């Protein structure tokens, strides 16, 4: 005799079997080599900064969920990504208490007040970094040299600055390739940039490892290749044009591509799915805006680096790109609607 009760469900009855937290986990895997290189080149300082930012992010997510009487969402790994990305964008000798505050801000103001995962307008890690940049302009632009011989045995004094105290930075501090160029007119070779033999934020220095992480995610279909392609291409083209006009005044496009946070931003920040557009054409526009703005800020702006603000601005425009640029629906004419 056959069983009497059956379960019912609405079709489809089979699923691809991929989940959001699996995607997030893979982003973490792709970021780990970047973290390892960061620790390798900057030593314990970088390890502490990244660990603190990550811990603060996850803790904040957990506490906020508890406070709003919801089940904790730290299992979706998105807070881990925010924390790691924040840590990787900070100078390696950044005071830990500031990094901790950054982690709180990223999750609380960057994500949670918008409604949590899926609803954030901006990349949470960059919101945190922007706040830190405004609050601690000196600490966030004081760079620590890479590959110091004692990097695995000693920790910079600034790292353990007491909360709300002015950090004291060690006398030796390395200029980043971008600031060296902007303020001293010195360029760094592309090979040094690609393999991270330079100073900079904890995770931005080795372009090759970042690119490999991106290729991994693109190959697993967990990242839209159009974003990094559009960002890098537009940055390359604009800086290439400038370079061909006056190669004395403007750095080469390869220098622009591999220096500073452009690679990290293009691969891991601009590609935040939530805060980027959804249609292919929209993605090209979005990426193009980031690439061009970055170069504009770097060349004509007061700051030596412009990736962060470019991405944040593009994040803000992204919903509008989506409402203007839509896929042409099958069997209809393309309509560009301004709503």
């Amino acid at each position, binding site marked *: 005799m056959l069983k009497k009760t059956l379960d*019912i469900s609405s079709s489809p*009855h089979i699923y*691809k079997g991929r989940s959001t937290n699996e995607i997030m986990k893979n982003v973490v895997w792709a970021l780990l080599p970047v973290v390892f290189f960061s620790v390798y080149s900057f030593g314990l300082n970088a390890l502490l900064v990244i660990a603190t930012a990550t811990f603060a992010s996850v803790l904040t997510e957990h506490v906020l969920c508890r406070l709003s009487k919801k089940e904790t969402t730290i299992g979706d790994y998105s807070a881990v990504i925010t924390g790691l990305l924040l840590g990787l964008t900070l100078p390696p000798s950044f005071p830990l208490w500031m990094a901790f505050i950054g982690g709180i801000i990223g999750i609380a103001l960057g994500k949670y007040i918008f409604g949590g995962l899926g609803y954030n307008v901006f990349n949470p890690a960059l919101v945190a970094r922007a706040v830190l940049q405004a609050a601690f302009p000196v600490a966030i632009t004081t760079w620590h040299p890479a590959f110091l011989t004692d990097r695995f045995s000693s920790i910079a004094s600034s790292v353990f600055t007491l909360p709300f105290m002015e950090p004291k930075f060690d006398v030796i501090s390395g200029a980043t390739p971008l600031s060296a160029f902007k303020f001293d007119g010195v360029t760094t070779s592309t090979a040094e940039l690609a393999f991270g033999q330079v100073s900079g934020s904890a995770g931005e220095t080795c372009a090759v490892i970042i690119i490999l992480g991106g290729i991994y995610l693109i190959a697993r279909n967990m990242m839209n290749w159009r974003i990094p392609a559009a960002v890098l291409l537009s940055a390359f083209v604009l800086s290439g044009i400038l370079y061909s006009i006056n190669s004395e005044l403007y750095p080469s496009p390869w220098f622009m591509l591999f220096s500073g946070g452009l690679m990290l931003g293009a691969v891991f920040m601009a590609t935040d799915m939530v805060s980027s557009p959804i249609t292919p054409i929209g993605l090209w526009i979005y990426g193009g805006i980031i690439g061009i703005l970055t170069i504009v800020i770097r060349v004509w702006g007061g700051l030596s680096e412009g990736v962060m603000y470019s991405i944040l601005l593009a994040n803000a425009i992204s919903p509008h790109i989506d409402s203007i640029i839509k*896929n042409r*629906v*099958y069997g209809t004419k393309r309509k560009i609607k301004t709503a």
Partner: protein
Amino acid sequence: MALFNLHKNTFKHGIHPPESKDETNGLPIRQFPFAPVIILPMAQHIGAPSQIVVREGQEVQRGQLLAKANGYVSVPMHAPVSGKVRKIANVPTISGKMSTGIYIEAFPFSTQEVLEGNPIDPDTATPEEILQGIQDAGIVGLGGAAFPTHVKLKVPEGKTCETLIINGVECEPYLTTDHRVMLEQEDDIFTGIKYLLKATGAKKAIIGIEANKQDAADHLVQNIPKGLPVSVQVLPVKYPQGAEKMLITSILGKEIPSGKLPIEAGAVVVNVATTAEIGRLLPHGRGIQERVITITGPGVKKKGNYLIPVGTPLRYVLEQVGVDEDISEVYMGGPMMGMAVSNLDISIVKGTSGILVFTKKDVNRSTTIYPCIKCGACVDACPILLNPSKLGILAKFEAYNEMASDFNLMDCFECGSCTYVCPSHIPLVQYFRQAKRIVRKREADKKEKAHA
């Protein structure tokens, strides 16, 4: 954009679910035994239910007319078995609604010979006579939609049908009925095409088959009768290529304008099993009494492709093939668009292309729904190029009118590709189904108000 619109022999987007056809695509069609009682619902096609013309207690012969078509968009029903009409009563259907139905007790020792009717000669009959013959045979789309075929074939005034497309795509995973029909019933298919070409006035017929059925394509190509303008086109495997719009785009490289029928592209699409049925029944003037059904799924013991009389109770079918103890879900149709069965006392109907049995561990539906992270997987899957992500968010806020007016909700044909790929496990197509129904109701209400 013309540069990028080069015809690629397939439609845009779509998905590649596991095909799961290997277990049954090599099994020949076998006759299924007659159930002791056949339960024949009158509402098993789109349109008005058939009107019963027999009475309780009457003896009927297999193939005899039991119910006549109730209007133009309706078809008659024939006895799938020789026996006695035990009662006429409400019977359950898969949708949960009850329908008037006929219970027939099969004669156990009958030879089950099929009654002959008025034969229709494909060479001398007029298109109108053929269409009438198709309706009289009770033929509906056997691919699953169950839309009366004669209505679909009627070319509207002022339009011309250039191409007859025979749909042998069978893109739903698990199903292998059309595959077997193409391998075993080539003569019926080509006879059917003869009728269809005449009825539609089309100059040529193209049989579309996905590459995973290359053997069927080769078999048909070898057997094309001399002088019949038929060609076979092998298409890359991709779901939902069997959908009419997608198939036309794959074969002709044209799109059907939103809300319009295939005839806008000068085409009429007919399922291959329906074609075979026309080719088999019309030369004898018979009515449809049985159909080929794939019975498969991890929970089934004797998987296969069976020729099953219409009206056979599902419970009887499952008892005959044997199912596991812990079956949890049974679907009629394929796993992408098929309907879950809530009640084993429903019957096999003309539109049943497959019966799929899953046990508890085969149902891999996730219970955790994450928020939409706008990854765009659904956007890359939707064959109609909608934005399911946005539609899903609007559905959550019940903004149904906006979904329809600004995001082309009504173009969704519910293939389920978006739900299949969604990593956040959002029941997108389920939302859209509900939204479409509500929008349709609102529009009908509005019209009613305007008339009042």
